[in-house]
């Protein structure tokens, strides 16, 4: 038995309502038919016919009644089923509505409230819960999970913020460490402070991650600084011994050159030259190592001697031409430095020019001081090389680490230039090579003194109108004698005691006879010149005594060189 479709309900309802009428009509019709049959039936058969008709009618009646009953039942069931279907449809519609509400309204509201920080229970109770328990359950589960997620997200955010802050702090400390603390520490260490002092007085970062490497860096740097300083001091000390030895060797050699004759003179000069070069090398190293020069002069040194002292220290001294006509002198304290500086520059010039070309050194006196120009005719220096050289001689690169290989000379020049305020400039030379211009400032020059007492007395005896051109040219530039006189002429001695009544000179100790003789001559200067020129014989005889004294002394100093001359010694020198 199938449940009829709802649309067919109406169709079946009308016959349903008509149903009690139809069976009744059937019963009435059949009863009438049966009566008719019974009425028409012959009397004989009436009883049988009546029974049969009655029986048939009963059968029809029963069938009609049963079918009517069945139909009614079916109709009722149909109605029930329709109602049930209706209810189910309504229920499903409600469920759909609730679901939609849940999805579009409740869940977003719950999510929002959870995000705002309310707990899952509060959030769920704050919204209208769906009537469906399963949906309610779903909402609860969702809210719990969501709450968990939100809490998680919040803690993660906090952690992230904290981590960011920490890393920002660390970055700031690191920046301060690299920008301020470490440079200061390096400077302090270079100044000679110990690692402990530096660690104590500076503000080090609190982060152990930064502090530990910074501390170990400072300690390591302090150790290496100490090591470098110790090595430097040790080499300076060792070099000072070599320097002292070289200086004493030079003194010994000079003495031997005086003592020995021509046979060994050349060899002695060669040794002297080697020792002088050695002296330059040791001085160079000593200056770089913070030591001192091997020599110090206690008197002004004239420029000519300065140049010679400089040129004597380089290997190719014979290729250097000195052009010096000034009589200016460099003060004692700066003389050695100037000599070393010029020697390095000359060495450089000689090394970087062809071995057949000369190196010319010019000295000019200017208002700013003395200008020494060293010109070679070698290759022109490239612009970069010249810039490097300028930088090297500027003295800015004082760090030993910037030295390259064996080319130490210019670094030494730079140090000396800074020490004495000397300016050193490179420029292309008009002769094709490179020129170095060295300006010795005025304060390095000896005080200009009255040159008169320094002239040797013989010059006073010379005719006044024709002074020596060399001296006339630069009369104001003569703070010192043309050549260094180790013993400066003493202040004028009492003239009265200088000669015997006979006119012979009296030699005071420490003076050569010739000197005494010249002074005597100077005393009689007014007539001296004419006397000497007009009466040569008298002058000659008078000079003979003086000459003998000098000759005697000269023999002593020239001993060993003059074997054959000894023979002629007793002979009195002839008059001119």
């Amino acid at each position, binding site marked *: 038995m199938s449940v009829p479709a709802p649309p067919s309900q109406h169709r079946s309802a009308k016959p349903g309502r008509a149903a009690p009428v139809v069976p009744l009509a059937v019963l009435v019709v059949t009863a009438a038919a049966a009566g008719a049959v019974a009425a028409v039936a012959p009397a004989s058969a009436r009883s049988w016919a009546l029974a049969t008709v009655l029986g048939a009618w009963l059968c029809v009646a029963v069938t009609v009644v049963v079918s009517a009953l069945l139909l009614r039942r079916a109709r009722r069931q149909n109605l029930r089923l329709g109602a049930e279907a209706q209810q189910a449809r309504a229920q499903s519609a409600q469920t759909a509505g609730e679901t939609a509400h849940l999805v579009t309204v409740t869940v977003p509201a719950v999510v929002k409230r959870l995000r705002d920080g309310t707990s899952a229970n509060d959030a769920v109770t704050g919204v209208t819960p769906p009537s469906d328990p399963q949906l309610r359950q779903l909402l609860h589960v969702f809210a719990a999970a969501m709450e968990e997620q939100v809490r998680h997200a919040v803690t993660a955010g906090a952690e992230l913020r904290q981590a960011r802050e920490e890393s920002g702090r660390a970055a700031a400390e690191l920046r301060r460490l690299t920008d301020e603390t470490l440079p200061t520490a390096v400077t302090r260490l270079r100044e000679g402070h110990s690692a402990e002092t530096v660690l104590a007085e500076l503000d080090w970062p609190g982060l152990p991650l930064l502090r530990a490497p910074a501390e170990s860096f400072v300690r390591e740097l302090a150790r290496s600084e100490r090591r470098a300083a110790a090595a430097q001091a040790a080499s300076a000390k060792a070099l000072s011994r070599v320097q002292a030895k070289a200086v004493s060797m030079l003194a010994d050699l000079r003495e031997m050159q005086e003592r020995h004759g021509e046979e060994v003179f050349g060899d002695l000069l060669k040794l*002297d*030259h080697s020792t002088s070069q050695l002296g330059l090398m040791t001085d160079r190293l000593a200056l770089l190592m913070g030591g001192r020069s091997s020599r110090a002069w206690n008197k002004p040194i004239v420029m*000519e001697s300065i140049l*010679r002292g400089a040129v004597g220290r380089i290997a190719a001294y014979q290729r250097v031409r000195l052009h010096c006509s000034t009589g200016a002198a460099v003060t004692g304290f700066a003389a050695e430095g100037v000599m070393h500086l010029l020697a390095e520059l000359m060495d450089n010039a000689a090394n970087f020019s062809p071995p057949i070309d000369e190196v010319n050194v010019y000295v000019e006196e200017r208002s700013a001081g003395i200008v020494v120009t060293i010109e070679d005719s070698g290759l022109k220096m490239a612009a970069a090389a010249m810039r490097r050289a300028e930088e090297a001689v500027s003295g800015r690169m004082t760090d030993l680490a910037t030295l390259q290989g064996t080319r130490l000379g210019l670094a030494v020049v730079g140090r000396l230039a800074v020490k004495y305020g000397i300016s050193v400039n490179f420029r292309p030379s008009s002769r094709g090579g490179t020129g170095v211009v060295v300006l010795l400032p005025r304060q390095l020059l000896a005080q200009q003194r009255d040159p008169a007492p320094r002239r040797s007395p013989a010059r006073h005896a010379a005719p006044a109108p024709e002074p*020596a051109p060399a001296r006339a040219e630069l009369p104001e530039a003569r703070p010192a004698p043309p050549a260094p006189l180790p013993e400066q002429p003493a202040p004028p001695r009492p003239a009265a005691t200088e000669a015997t009544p006979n006119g012979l000179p009296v030699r005071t100790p420490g003076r050569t006879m*010739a000197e005494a003789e010249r002074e005597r001559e100077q005393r009689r200067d007014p007539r001296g010149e004419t006397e000497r020129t007009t009466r040569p014989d008298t*002058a000659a005889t008078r000079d003979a005594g003086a*000459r003998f004294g000098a000759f005697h002394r000269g023999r002593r100093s020239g001993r060993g060189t003059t074997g054959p001359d000894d023979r002629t010694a007793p002979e*009195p020198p*002839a008059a001119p």
Partner: protein
Amino acid sequence: MRRPVDTGDPDRLYTVTGGRSRADDDFDLVTLVVSESEPTAGMQSEHARILDLCRHPTAVVEIAAELKLPITVVRILLGDLLAMGRITARHPRAAQSLASLPDSALLKEVLHGLRNL
């Protein structure tokens, strides 16, 4: 060990002679030297001093003593000057004659002077 200051001269002798160590000329100790010209500007200072010194005839030994230089160096320098024609040298032997010898009175004077030295 180390002297505080140096009192000598910075010039080495080979820079004075320009590296030469042997004199080519036959100057001996008593050769008399006379300058023939005045020193000029830019001249080596030793040359200038020799020219100054030899305004009147001076023996080589005396020049050496005056310049405080070894005889060999002085001879080299004198050789330079001679080559330049700035000095003339006179060998004593050439001028040796009885007439030019000092008389006995002078010799006595010398002796007296020597005793007083």
